[in-house]
């Protein structure tokens, strides 16, 4: 048993426990420090993760846990996201009346869940890791317990999440029953014989339901807008980036490591889900006035784009997903940072409260605009190249199955629709003038630094994607495609 492979997760968990404990003795006025410490700690772990290199897959806990380039990629991804979200939480801390220390801790625990999920090589571990994430998010979502919206979001997320979990458990049961194992390696070994077994397929479908809920894919996307809107902003950010990425990595692992044959049989399903998700998210976002809710819908649409890569069932598609997620990370976090800071001034995320932002804070305005532009998939930002790779991957498959071309068309329609509302945000930010009462917004140094980091990330990925693409390509080599 090679426990040392889990060093990163262990570090995060220890950090979480440490924060929890330190919080007990820390005086009120130094709370801010706690957040910075947590962020710095995560950052440190992130840096440390670069000391680890995994030339080939290594296993621990009886092949339940795997450490391979894909896992490492996502661990770093989550660590990065975690560091930024923690910084964001510090910014948000005055709006959480109680237990900010616990907030950081739970974020860290959720983070560790995501990191475990990245390494999951067994359905049981998948389930447990996902539940850790989910339960942590139940708490994070309803953390503003004096805010009815936050509580409501928590309840909604909890009920639907538990529903999805139930399906997932049932699915795991069925898979276990037919393949007689929950380990991916074993499933892959017997998949040839069981892939025609309807019970096995049913199991896979139920597991997909559970994951579909996590990434907010159609038809399990209903929760996203409400929860995005109601949750505290850092939670939303982490939900948008971390939870979605965790769902995606598990989806990829299960589909392409455990049951690749089934994945290639089910392309039509994936195509339909991806297409409908894109359309649904974009169409619903059109008339949206609440920016967080809009981003909720947009996250549905982006789940659809990510599913493009899944639907392609190819190395190119998977690597495109990884790249896309990386771009999405910077973009969404930048957007939520701005929202978080602006909402600190006015407790309202209606788009109208962003009017004249350019005059109140040019940096925030530019950041939000850049984020929107990147989300819309316009060069030179990361979103463009990600979409480019995804579309390329899908078109690549078009020769085998014409349905892919329809999917491409749908994706295009989605992109065009999305332009409308993304640019609507940009318009509000720049076209209008601030109402007289609104003062200019000050941005603290760490946040400024963070924003710069996000912008640099977006630009770097958009302008010099070579390294990231290579990284993604190396990471997806683990799949059996």
């Amino acid at each position, binding site marked *: 048993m090679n426990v040392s492979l889990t060093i990163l997760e262990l570090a995060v968990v220890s950090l979480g426990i440490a924060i929890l404990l330190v919080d007990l003795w820390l005086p009120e006025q130094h709370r801010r420090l706690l957040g910075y410490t947590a962020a710095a700690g995560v950052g440190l772990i992130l840096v440390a993760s670069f000391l680890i290199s995994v030339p080939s897959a290594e296993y621990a806990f009886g092949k339940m846990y795997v450490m391979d380039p894909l896992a490492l990629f996502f661990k770093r991804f989550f660590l990065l996201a975690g560091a930024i979200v923690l910084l964001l939480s510090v910014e948000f801390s005055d709006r959480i009346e109680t237990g900010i220390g616990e907030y950081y801790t739970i974020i860290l625990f959720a983070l560790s869940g995501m990191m475990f999920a990245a390494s999951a090589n067994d359905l049981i571990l998948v389930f447990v890791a996902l539940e850790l994430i989910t339960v942590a998010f139940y708490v994070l979502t309803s953390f503003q317990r004096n805010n009815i919206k936050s509580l409501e979001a928590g309840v909604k997320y909890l009920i639907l999440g538990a529903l999805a979990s139930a399906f997932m458990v049932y699915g795991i049961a069925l898979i276990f029953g037919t393949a007689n194992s929950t380990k991916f390696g074993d499933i892959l070994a017997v998949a040839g014989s069981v892939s025609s077994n309807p019970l096995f397929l049913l199991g896979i479908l139920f597991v997909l339901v559970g994951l579909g809920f996590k990434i907010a894919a159609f038809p399990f996307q209903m929760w996203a807008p409400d929860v995005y809107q109601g949750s505290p902003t850092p939670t939303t950010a982490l939900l948008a980036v971390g939870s979605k990425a965790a769902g995606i990595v598990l989806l990829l692992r299960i589909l392409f490591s455990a049951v690749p044959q089934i994945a290639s049989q089910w392309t039509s399903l994936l195509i339909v889900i991806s297409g409908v998700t894109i359309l649904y998210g974009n169409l619903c976002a059109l008339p949206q006035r609440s920016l967080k809710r809009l981003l909720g819908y947009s996250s549905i649409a982006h789940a659809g784009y990510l599913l493009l890569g899944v639907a392609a069932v190819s190395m190119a598609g998977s690597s495109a997903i990884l790249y896309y997620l990386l771009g999405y990370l910077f973009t969404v976090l930048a957007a939520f940072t701005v929202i978080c800071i602006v909402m600190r001034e006015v407790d309202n995320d209606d788009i109208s409260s962003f009017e004249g932002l350019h005059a109140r804070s040019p940096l925030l305005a530019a950041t939000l605009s850049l984020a929107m532009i990147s989300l819309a998939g316009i060069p030179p930002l990361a979103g463009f190249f990600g979409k480019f790779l995804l*579309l390329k991957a899908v078109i690549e498959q078009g020769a085998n199955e014409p349905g892919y071309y329809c999917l491409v068309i749908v994706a*295009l329609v989605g992109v*065009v629709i999305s332009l409308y509302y993304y640019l609507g945000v940009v318009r509000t930010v*720049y*076209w209008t003038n601030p109402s007289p009462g609104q003062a200019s917004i000050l941005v603290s140094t760490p946040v400024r630094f963070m924003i710069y980091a996000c912008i640099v990330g977006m630009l770097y990925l958009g302008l010099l994607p070579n390294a990231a693409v290579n990284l993604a390509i190396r990471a997806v080599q683990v799949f059996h495609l």
Partner: protein
Amino acid sequence: MSHISTITFLLLWPFLGAIVIALLPRDFRLAIRAVALASTLFSLLLAIKVFLQFDASLLAPQFVQKVLWVEAIGISYHVGVDGLNVGLILMGAIVAFAAACVSSEIETRHKEYYFLLLVMIGGILGAFASLDLFFFYFFHELALIPTFIMIGLWGKGENRIYATYKITIYLSIGALLALIGLIALYLHAGGTTFDMIALTKQLSDSPLAPESQHLIFPLLLFGFGILVSLWPFHTWAPLGYAAAPTATAMLHAGVLKKFGLYGLIRIAIPMMPEAAHSWMHVLAFLCLGNILFCGFVAMRQKDLLLLIGNSSVAHMGFAFLGIASLNLIGITGAILVMIAHGLLAALTFALAGYLYRQTHTLRMDQIKGLLPQIPFVGTVSIMALLAGCGLPGFANFVGEVTVFFGAWKQYPFVTALSVWGALVIGGVYMLRAIRTIFHGPANEGFNKMTDAVNPLTRLPYLLLLGSLLCFGFFPRLLSDKIKPAADAVAKLAAVARESSQPIESTEATVTASSKIASSVPTSKQ
């Protein structure tokens, strides 16, 4: 790559300028403007240098620079010039400088404006200089975004927001269609490289299967077509240009719009000649929509900007016609039209912008008889409008006539109608504009106009007009440079023609020519 090509410098200047502007404090208005002017001027000088040093006798692209960008999928930063784009780059640089000059009309948010302007210029120049499919598209998109934002922020008129959305959505659809086509092309060609030169060579050696060609070509045709306002996807253009700030309209209508045409010539036709043959008939008839339909629409416009916008759409029809003819003359003509129209559109929009600043309206039922008050601008405007209806001496005439000669053999009927559109319809609306706005008695309320007296103010107009006249008088400056490259394209297209059914086309010619015989007496009225 040890050396850095002049072209790279040419692209770099606007971006460098943009960065410098981004770093300057927002109160340094003069410095910001100076940086913008200087960087575009440097680009212009480099473009002139490239143009003069360009050796038409070499078929390979020159001033090449190639840096691997994304190794895994074969994207590289690859720029260079050959006959197809050398003129366009020069034109783009001229228009860019002129656009920077006329930007003095901007009164708010200089910093953002000039930043976006320079990014747009860099993108435009990059799109035309790229020899890599990805960067070709990338730069174009890069230039589009500032366009949208500038229209929205500094645009004029009440419905600029609607116009912004319309232009955004339309152009995005077009660009995305083209993107799909480009990706599909890349993949069908083996998925190893985005390099245009390599792809062209590879595809001429082993052409794509006809099914693939017929799948990809329409994507490119309509994708690029929407970008160039191919009828009936043109409605964004007049509206958008009417709403755009002057420099944006100049750059977009003048240069960026040509991207689609350039793409057709550079990519679609040489790489998929067979499909090109079967689709060019469609294009030929759609271009009639541009020439005649939009010409008629232009006749009805009451606003000068809308008139110019529609006429610019109509002019695109000639370039389409040239491309549709798929022969050396037609393609050369199309490029000439592109260059000429680029200069002309920039000039007209610059002038319209000047007038608008003076009058705050360009409705032709309100402003009348301006010439005596603004002799310089008026005269230049009249010359520009006359150039717009294809007057010899201006570069447009050369391009249009060349297109007609090129297209005549393929589509006599279409060409006849296009000639009608060029000579008669074009004449009607341009003269109408001159007649109402500049001639006739002056209208009350517009008697406080000031003419452009300052030499610096005059510079952009004179520069554009001078280039138009220069290329109009000495078209060989351009045509000799274009010809070898256009010939290569036409040859690739011709190879496919021989392989496809020749009988059908001759039949078509015969029927078409009998049509023309019957149509001439009626069309003479």
